[in-house]
């Protein structure tokens, strides 16, 4: 796959058009990140965070969504130093995945399921997993980015605050929408080296 810069949007946009992904392509996240961030100035942490976000969300779609494809689109606005990306699948969705696992019998509704899935170490697969959504949530909260997770009847909007909405109609699958802006003190995980551990 060769991601292309769109020439149909205004020239101040850099975009990766809606693309169907049939597998979690390893090089794709890096290619898309490069397109989106090449004209963004600012800290290197930001580019790495975007790379990480794309990689993790695609991986989650295939690993947990029980789907054989997902869709992704993204764009950046260099003048506003912002990147927006959206990844969507029509798999079983987070609530169904969590309930089916029978690992968390106290879940009352879809909101509980999505909230739980974004905790560290929580996964529908086993106790020894559950990182992607937790780390994305961490980056969003600390950088006042905007992360929206829509799955089943649950919609969570995560930024400095968290807003949880129980919808009347279920979304058939999972959508993750991230809007993230560079900033001088951009936070991306611990800055310790291996030797300092």
């Amino acid at each position: 796959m060769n991601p292309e810069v769109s020439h149909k949007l205004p020239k101040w946009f850099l975009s990766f058009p809606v693309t169907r992904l049939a597998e979690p392509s390893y090089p794709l996240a890096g290619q898309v990140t490069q397109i989106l961030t090449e004209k963004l100035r600012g800290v290197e942490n930001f580019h790495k965070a975007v790379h990480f976000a794309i990689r993790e969300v695609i991986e989650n779609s295939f690993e947990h969504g029980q789907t054989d494809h997902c869709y992704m689109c993204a764009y950046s606005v260099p003048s506003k130093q912002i990147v927006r990306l959206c990844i969507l699948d029509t798999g079983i969705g987070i609530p169904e995945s969590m309930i089916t696992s029978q690992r968390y019998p106290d879940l009352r509704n879809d909101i509980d399921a999505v909230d739980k899935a974004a905790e560290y170490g929580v996964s529908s697969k086993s106790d020894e997993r559950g990182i992607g959504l937790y780390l994305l949530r961490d980056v969003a909260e600390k950088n006042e980015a905007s992360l929206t997770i829509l799955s089943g009847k649950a919609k969570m909007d995560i930024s400095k605050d968290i807003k949880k909405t129980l919808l009347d109609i279920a979304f058939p699958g999972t959508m993750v929408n991230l809007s993230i802006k560079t900033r001088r003190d951009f936070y991306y995980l611990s800055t310790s080296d291996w030797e300092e551990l």
Partner: protein
Amino acid sequence: MVPGTKITLIFKEWLNQPGSLREIGSIINDVIVFQWSHYEIVELDFENETVASGSLFDEIAKLFNEFPKEEVKRRLKFINIDPCDEHLIVHLAKLRLARKEVSA
């Protein structure tokens, strides 16, 4: 294991394997543990390629569940690694260690 010995493994040779990144990380974890029975130090050479996968690196961080922290730090080394990948591994290792402490 022979003291003073070291083996260098090329990280990206695993990245083209079939399976999810977490599955690949699990294989790498198994390989490290296996090699530790023969070599004192296992070195992962990333050849300056960015990985940026929390799932894969979390499988490496699981080494801290099985072995003492100082032993893992001493016997596992990374070379030519993107600093942000190193920070991600450290971040995940800290989470694993904190969880291990709570469980103890």
